């Protein structure tokens, strides 16, 4: 494991691009609210803001030296502290908040928790996300 608990990735800006949200809602085929339109000022569908989407999976997974073939997304826990709107420019701040290893029937499993904060332009933390990535073997 190349990184340790507490490792912080450099901050990155993420533009909440209506086009990407439109693609996301099209993929789902279910609107987050009846009559939803992915345009500037609309709320962000739950599930869109994830570090994989906003920061890019590669820098995090590369730092972990994870083999994508053995890696699955385990889950996510989000706290919504302030509204985020399409068109906002967020600062994305991921860090490695926990690494645990377990041995089970299917062999060794490594659970990595990435905690990511999303900050509005005024510095307010709008969303705090904890994602779990699981690597087998």
């Amino acid at each position, binding site marked *: 494991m190349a990184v340790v608990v507490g490792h912080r990735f450099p901050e990155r800006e993420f533009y909440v691009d209506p086009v990407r949200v439109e693609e996301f809602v099209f993929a789902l085929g279910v609107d*987050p609210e009846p009559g939803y339109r992915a345009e500037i000022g609309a709320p962000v569908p739950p599930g869109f803001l994830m570090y994989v989407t906003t920061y*890019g999976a590669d820098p995090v997974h590369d730092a972990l030296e994870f083999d994508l073939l053995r890696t699955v997304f385990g889950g996510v826990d989000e706290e919504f502290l302030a509204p985020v709107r399409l068109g906002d420019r967020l600062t994305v701040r991921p860090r490695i908040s926990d690494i645990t290893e377990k041995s089970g029937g299917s062999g060794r499993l490594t659970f990595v928790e990435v905690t990511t904060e999303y900050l509005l332009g005024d510095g307010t933390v709008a969303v705090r996300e904890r994602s779990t990535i699981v690597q087998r073997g």
Partner: protein
Amino acid sequence: MTTQMSYQIGDTLPEIVTPAIDRMRIAYMTVSMRDPNLVHLEDDYAAKAGLPSVIAHGTFAVSHLGAAVSRAVGVDALTQFRVDLVAPVFPGDVLRTEATVTGVETGDGGTVVSVKLSATKADGTRVARGTAAFREPAAA
């Protein structure tokens, strides 16, 4: 958004039955997320991971469970949202959501409603479970 005025423990939010999560939807999710993982796109690559075909992104089950809440109460009412993924979703799968009220707490900041969430395939396989909390609008 308008919403039901008062939730009780045991109430359910309307279920969502998703469209089939076909390969086109999976491709769009890859594009939207800028996801580099070929396990969602190429069967040969997925086979190397021991899978019978490509798998859908975890964001499908996560977001459909989110939509089960946000369609009922509005995106802005959500305060907390957790989903654990427990089984893979394959091309063609249809998911059905369940959201059941487990708690209603009223404090100085208003009323917060807790729900438990579950997403299952047509054959009954559960693919995700979780919890959410949302603010109930003050009675008019």
